[in-house]
């Protein structure tokens, strides 16, 4: 599973996505929303929540909820090591190919694509095994979308599994290794991305194409 990208697509938006068993190591598949954040962290998994605090800088957003404290007494009082967080954030952004003009401007003043890249980086930095991304490129322009996809590819190359949920077929084909098509809450088809075509995917989504070996 590691190093692979898996795409799931549901035929209707808003349908709850069920996480496949081996990924979450739950006995039964559970709706994604039911998974709490904390156990994820422990298992090295992370959810991309496309939410950040627009008034905080990228480093602060990256470390939100997981701040690095100073050493010694001041740290025990809750004082943050901002320089260390900024330094490590620069490093992580560099590693993931997220280019920002500055790491200390509010994130709200960045472009949509950069903001989303930071959000993706945020989840990726804390994940060691698998990341779930639900429509991470929705509402982005073409250029910004490409930038986010680049980040996703880098994550994949770093050996972290990415589950990308998307309705955008060309995007799915361009970044994924394996594609799982969901229709009405069930998996209806499974493809290797390099062998699948747009027509196959759309066919499976709409129910025109039925694979015998799955479902």
């Amino acid at each position, binding site marked *: 599973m*590691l*190093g692979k990208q898996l795409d799931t697509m549901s035929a209707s938006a808003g349908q709850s996505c069920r996480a496949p068993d081996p990924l979450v190591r739950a006995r039964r598949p559970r709706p994604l929303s039911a998974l709490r*954040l*904390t156990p994820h962290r422990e298992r090295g998994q992370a959810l991309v*929540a496309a*939410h*950040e*605090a*627009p*008034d*905080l800088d990228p480093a*602060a957003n990256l470390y*939100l*909820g*997981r*701040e690095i*404290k100073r050493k010694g007494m001041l740290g025990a*009082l*809750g*004082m*943050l090591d*901002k320089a260390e967080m900024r330094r490590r954030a*620069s*490093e992580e*952004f*560099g*590693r*993931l*190919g997220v*280019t*920002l*003009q*500055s*790491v*200390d*401007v*509010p994130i*709200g*003043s*960045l*472009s949509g694509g950069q903001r989303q890249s930071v959000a993706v980086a945020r989840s990726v930095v804390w994940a060691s095994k698998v990341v779930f991304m639900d429509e991470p490129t929705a509402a982005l322009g073409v250029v910004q979308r490409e930038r986010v996809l680049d980040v996703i590819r*880098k994550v994949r*190359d*770093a*050996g972290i599994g990415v589950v990308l949920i998307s309705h955008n077929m060309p995007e799915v084909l361009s970044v994924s290794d394996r594609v799982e098509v969901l229709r009405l809450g069930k998996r209806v088809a499974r493809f290797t991305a390099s062998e699948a075509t747009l027509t196959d995917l759309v066919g499976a989504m709409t129910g025109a194409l039925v694979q015998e070996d799955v479902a």
Partner: protein
Amino acid sequence: MTTVTETVPPQEKRSLAKRLAGANSLWIGLVLLVLIAVFGVIDPTHVLTVFNLQTVLIQTSVLLVLSVGMTFVIVTSGIDLSVGTVLVFSGVTSAQTMNALCGGDSTNAGWGVVIVGGVVAVVSGAAWGFLNGWLIARAKIPPLIVTLGSFGAALGAAELLSGGSDVRSVPNALAQSLGSGTSFGGIPNMVIFAAVVTAIGAWLLGTTRFGRYTYAVGSNEVAAQRTGISVTRHLVLVYMLAGALAGLAGFMSLAYFTTTTLTSHGTDNLNAIAGTVLGGTSVFGGVGSVIGTVIGVFIPAVLNQGFVIIGVKPFWQPIAVAIVLVAAVWFDQTRRRARNQR
């Protein structure tokens, strides 16, 4: 499994000057300096005297302590209208406790009693803050309504406790040390006390995790929740902090005026909000600083004192403050809109 190795692109570090220019508090600080300079040029013999400085500083120190708490609350995009009456309530509970400990008249009470009085004031304030925070964060009632309620309730409770008349006996030990004493060659103890509280507040908001979470909750509550911050707990703590500081301000007021001043804090809440917002803290949350608040609080004080000295009717002061206040919020809003369109 492959590992990505790539050199870190040089991240441009913003120069100090650039960062300062972007900060609201710098501009408002300049406004304050210009005001002082203008009044100073018009009437240099009066404005920059030690006595005038002392008067302005003492009068502002109680308000400053209230405003530090208000800064935390407004950064979470909340509001606390109750600080002025919580101040009064805490003053009453504190004075009554001290009197009760001394069998009715605490004028000659010792330091032990004074310390108990201080603790009672802070705890009374924090209790109101807890009530505010719980109703806002747990019951999801808008802060404006909750604190409008406690604004009235705290004053009512204070009047119930005191029977509607001020408690006038305050330990001399307190009045002569914190209230009217000076240290380091003439700096009023009230001012030193307020400065220490403010410095701690600035440290807490600017450099600690508590402060970082305060900004995060104000900037985007949902995002804060999603990253695992307990927003409810944090909001309760922030309102408790504001309440505790109001209690402390009540204790300071008690020391300075040696009475509970039941009727004279009705607009403290508005003054604290004005000072905080003037200092660059955004009413939309997520942005602000205690340093800015310090500057913001002094602008109305300097205007007031300046108008008195140069002979302009002091009635102009609220009008001038109003103009600057509305302009400050307008500026903040325009800036935000420009940013969010990108």
